[in-house]
């Protein structure tokens, strides 16, 4: 029984949160990696673009709530995602037309692209703060929990319970759906294949009649979908705050590089690697160990490897280690 309790403690406090957080990171990391593979630059506006898409979802959620629309037990935000995605794609295409396309035609070095994306980051951040303000916003409605700890305890008769928040379940399910559709698209459809060809070897792709404008357009469309969904899911799970989104860019970058930048599978996997590492290394194992060991050996310290303040440090250190040992990432990077 104690063994079962220990497993449940671990499951409840590490596996479920890490899966949800990892899914959010994975979506962001695939976004980074796609831009890197097709458009060939590290997009420093990643976090703010995700924030921008989420902002529309938040505003529309408030609007729908005032109209009385809703999905019942599900959060209203799910209803607003398609509209937010449309706005996001529009914004990205405008940015691409007025900013990035010029440098793409000129074939500027990646560093210049990165600096330009810093400019886009500033502008996006300003627009977000001017439109919605910097404050913390919660826009989750509907049922909060799928399984509550007390119910679980009553059902199973165990001392420990599992809590499953609806946002966590939604995050994991939506991520799996979106990512599988995306992988199907990249691998099985003609457009996806042409994107991969373009990313692999631009000149050869052009030679075989692939329209570069179309590839770029589709990339931004997919990027808009990923950015908005990733941002909304994170906002539902935690809360929406522009500054936090900027900070989230850093673990997202770490995830993309750890998986092998330019490789969507790697980015997907990298998101979970980063999330699990962050949570497992900063989790206090006291309760877990207490169940496994006899009561005489019960530990009196927190049994924590690193304090939770160092959550981000863990992911960045993993990145540094990966860069040192295997700069191309866990999966080989650089092509879709």
């Amino acid at each position, binding site marked *: 029984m104690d063994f079962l309790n220990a497993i449940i403690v671990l499951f409840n406090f590490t596996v479920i949160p890490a899966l949800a957080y990892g899914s959010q990171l994975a979506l962001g990391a695939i976004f980074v990696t796609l831009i890197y593979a097709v458009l060939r630059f590290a997009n420093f506006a990643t976090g703010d673009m995700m924030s921008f898409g989420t902002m529309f979802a938040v505003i529309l959620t408030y609007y729908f709530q005032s109209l009385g629309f809703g999905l019942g037990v599900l959060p209203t935000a799910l209803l607003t995602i398609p509209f937010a995605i449309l706005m996001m794609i529009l914004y990205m295409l405008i940015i691409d037309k007025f900013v990035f396309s010029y440098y793409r035609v000129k074939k500027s070095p*990646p*560093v210049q692209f990165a600096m330009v994306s810093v400019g886009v980051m500033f502008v996006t951040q300003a627009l977000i703060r001017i439109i919605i303000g910097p404050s913390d916003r919660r826009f989750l409605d509907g049922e909060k929990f799928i399984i509550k700890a007390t119910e679980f305890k009553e059902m199973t008769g165990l001392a420990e319970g599992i809590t499953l928040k609806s946002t966590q379940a939604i995050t994991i399910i939506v991520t799996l759906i979106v990512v599988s559709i995306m992988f199907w698209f990249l691998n099985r459809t003609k457009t996806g294949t042409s994107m991969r060809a373009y990313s692999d070897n631009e000149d050869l792709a052009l030679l075989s009649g692939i329209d570069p404008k179309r590839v770029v357009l589709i990339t931004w469309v997919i990027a808009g979908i990923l950015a908005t969904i990733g941002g909304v899911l994170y906002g539902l799970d935690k809360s929406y705050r522009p500054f936090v989104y900027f900070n989230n860019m*850093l673990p997202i970058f770490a995830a993309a590089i750890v998986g092998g930048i330019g490789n969507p599978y790697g980015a997907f996997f990298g998101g979970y690697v980063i999330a699990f590492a962050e949570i497992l290394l900063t989790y206090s194992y006291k309760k877990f160990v207490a169940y496994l060991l006899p009561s005489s050996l019960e530990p009196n310290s927190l049994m924590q*490897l690193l304090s939770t*303040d160092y959550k981000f440090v863990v992911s960045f250190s993993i990145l540094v280690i990966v860069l040192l040992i295997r700069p191309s990432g866990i999966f080989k990077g650089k092509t879709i």
Partner: protein
Amino acid sequence: MRNYENVIYAYIIMLLLIICVGLFQSWSIALTILNYCLISAVMTIGANIQWGYAGLINFGIMGYTALGGLAVVLVSVDPVKKAWQVGGLNILGSIWIIVAIVFITRFILKRFEKSLIRNYSIAFLIIAGVILIRVTATPGIEAIESVDPAVSGFLGGMGLPVLMSWIIGAFLAGALAFIVGKIALGLRADYLAIATLLIAEIIVSIIKHEEWLARGVKNVIGLKRPAPYEVELQKTQWFRDFIEKIYSNKLELINTIAQKKIILNQLIIDASSIFVKLCFTSLFLSVVIILLIVTQKALYSPWGRKMRAIRDNEEAASAMGKNIVKEHLFIFILGSAIVGLAGAMMVTNDGLFTPGSYRPMRYTFVIWVMVIVGGTGNNFGAILGGFVVWFLWVEAAPISLFLIDLFTAHLPETNMIRSHLVESAPYFRFLLIGIGLLLIMRYRPQGIIPEKIIKQ
């Protein structure tokens, strides 16, 4: 001299702008802006050495700035004896453990062939080391942090004069740059940008959360100053006489002695704050001038030509027998050390160390915008960029408020759009900086004052 004409014009316009602030807002604000402009100029010199001279992209400026600031605390604050007594040994012990781990790892790496066993043993060593450090340090840290937690709760510094910390800050930042450079400099440009950005986050995160070191987010206030304090200055006789002499014409017009005294006191209070700021200005200005002379000399020396050659064509320079890895590392250390110096200067100017305020937006990206806008590879340009961008960064809110008022003048005060815009005026600085950067990148990619290469 003709060559320098536009440089001189650009600087004169900048100075006029600052004087305008002095005339329309107040001289105290103008001097504060000028001081920060000078500090930004030092940072941009550092960033420009890395990016402009050598083409190294360092997005970790925030980390070196924070480390320079930390140096001020570690050097100038008086040591907290009680904290050293209760926990000093544990801290020293853990530092030795870290040193030992590093050396043993190096030994293993050198001595044994590359193999799976070696990797596992290093991993095991590091994990064991981390646990050992936690066991040794935790009781010490708890003891230190419980010594007067409201005012101290940290080890304190060495109690040396604060100007020493500028040099030590530069050394600390240089040492960090050595480690980072060893790890990351081999990477491609955009990887290097990301890696340095994240490493800087690690540094700031450690400074924020290790409260025994510099009180973390609880901040250290009341740091020493290289300039006199306002309150003491107001009591000094020569300063009072000096102010009385300057304003003697104005004071003569006032009849009653009591009123004269009140007005004189007010003048002395205002003048003391300006005097202190002027002291800082002269200190900062001398640092900027010294750095400018040295970097200018270096740029046109054989060494500068070598760096440009490496930047413009690595393979060719390498074929000419230049050691690219070594040169990159050296210039990375040099630039970071200057940024560390700027960080120390900034904390000295503020008189407080607030680790929570180190954010990549303000301390990395804005500095980069300064370098790009001013002119990469040209020190005069980089410094001007520091001035222009910092001026815009500070004055964007008043300017945008003015513009909002102008364009929404026909709307009533209570109008939703108007009040919303007025509320969000502080964020127009991001918009301004972002659009400025994009425009410069597009239409004048070499910056306001482009790089000038003198043919020899």
